[in-house]
């Protein structure tokens, strides 16, 4: 892609696994919403568990987590995810407007001579205003940005679910916290695999989920929509220096030549195919995906 030239100039850190060689950390992602990331992640988790592996599945689509619903699993032990957000101590405020000037998110509204107004929807909780305030009138106050849950799906198969609080715009840090909990759980349980199910897209919360993975499965479908978004995801994986393989979902609804071509051009290949079938749709709706693991076709 033409604009890819900009990236090479950026100082990117290899985002692959640094340690924990015994634990394989693998992501299921895909730019397009509804393409089958969660379906694939769950089918793969069941397949690996059936083969005798200990598996932790981490649902990092914290804005709209679905894995617990598709597995029919009750959410287990809850933990709150907290982040500092600025609070103004009005008596100390000297109305200088420094906070307004340093905020890069336009989350502070200020009129000369008045106290600043903090716009919660836009604030990412970076703390720049707290640091810059000459009167030390802004303090960090912990607020809940989300929650994580650990649930047991079956023997040797656990699910970690992250849910961000509605209205939080920056969900990257929530994903980071959920993953941390999943890695710890995987280490405690001596898991063989940690599967990370990401959100759709290519933005920071997806990147937060992919960092530290040793392999990425890019789920797509044989339509122009799937093809366009596959290119983006493969470019992202390349940028993060994580090897990627393609999973072609609804494999028989359209021609797969373009998908093959896109995968090949990115130095990748189609690793799995899942046919479109009424059986799968029914299993999906009835939360019985374990019954259709056989539909996962490894190439």
């Amino acid at each position, binding site marked *: 892609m033409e604009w890819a030239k*900009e990236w090479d100039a950026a100082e990117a*850190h290899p985002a692959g696994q640094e340690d924990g060689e015994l634990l394989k950390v693998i992501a299921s992602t895909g730019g397009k919403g509804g393409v089958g990331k969660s379906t694939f992640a769950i089918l793969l988790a069941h397949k690996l568990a059936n083969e005798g592996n200990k598996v932790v599945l981490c649902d990092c689509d914290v804005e709209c987590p679905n894995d617990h619903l598709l597995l029919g699993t009750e959410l287990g032990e809850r933990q709150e995810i907290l982040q500092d957000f600025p609070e103004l101590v009005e008596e100390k405020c000297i109305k200088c407007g420094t906070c307004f000037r340093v905020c*890069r998110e336009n989350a502070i509204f200020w009129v000369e001579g008045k106290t600043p107004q903090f716009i919660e929807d836009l604030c990412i909780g970076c703390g720049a205003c707290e640091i810059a305030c000459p009167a030390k009138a802004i303090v960090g106050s912990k607020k809940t940005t989300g929650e994580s849950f650990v649930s047991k799906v079956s023997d040797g198969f656990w699910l970690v679910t992250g849910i961000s609080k*509605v209205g939080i715009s920056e*969900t990257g840090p929530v994903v980071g916290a959920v993953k941390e909990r999943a890695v710890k759980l995987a280490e405690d349980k001596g898991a063989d695999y940690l599967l990370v199910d990401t959100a759709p897209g290519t*933005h920071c*919360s997806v*990147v937060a989920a992919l960092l530290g993975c040793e392999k990425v499965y890019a789920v797509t479908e044989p339509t122009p*929509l799937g093809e366009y978004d596959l290119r983006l995801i493969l470019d992202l994986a390349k940028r993060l220096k994580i090897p990627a393989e393609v999973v072609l979902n609804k494999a028989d609804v359209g021609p797969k030549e373009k998908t093959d071509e896109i995968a090949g051009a990115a130095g990748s290949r189609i690793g799995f195919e899942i046919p479109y079938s009424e059986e799968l749709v029914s299993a999906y*709706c009835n939360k019985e995906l374990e019954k259709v693991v056989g539909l996962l076709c490894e190439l």
Partner: protein
Amino acid sequence: MLASALAMLYAKENKVVACDCDADAPNLGLWLGVEDYDSVEKVSTSSRAVIDYGKCVNCGKCAETCRFNAIKMQEGKPVANYFLCEGCGACELVCPQKAITMKSVQNGAVRVRRNASGIPLYSGQLFPGETGSGKIVEEIRKRAEKEEHEVMVLDAAAGIGCPVIASVRGCDRAVLVTEPTPSGLADLKRALTLVEHFNLPYQLVVNKWDANKETTAAIEEEFGEKVIGKLSYDRKVIDSIVRLKPILESDSKVVGEIKAVFQRLQSP
């Protein structure tokens, strides 16, 4: 799909501008039958911390301050992770040696197609891995606003994070599309809290309604009058997109169903 069809239906009697607010995976153009754009403008709505090691004394204050774990001490030196850096500038403010500068990065592009099935289309592309998806959406909307129009149809991203917030803020109404599956329902409820947070009047459309008629019935029961249409699962929809033909040009029964949704949107 629905956004593209509604844009085309509104365009029969109104001046319309179409806005693809899914900067991560922009697909609206494809549904309007276009793959190319008349203009592509790279934009910069975010920045990254760059450390000058000539000035840095390895005090670690930046690593301590960063709330996004984007700076880690490695072998005694602070190292900034490009992908975790949110570009907030807190480290630049806190560094006693003034060794950190925030450098602007081109994190995306805004694209315009003057005629996408008869409608001007504003779209964008966040460069994969970059931050600031929501700000790219804001840039797309700023430019689309300048286009003379009576109706703007915005196709939002999936989820409820910053790009969706940027899409929904300031709109007059929302049409939420769902599907009768456990995930469809759960995600609908999340999206609704966001729409309600912005006090937007809204209506619902159930896509692929016949894939699970019981769940569709449950949705209709729960949301009543808010449900203004049901679109069938039809392979002809996939055939349409595979051939890059707008859905309204197909002979799928979904076309009639979409027109019924459009009619409902006209009534007060």
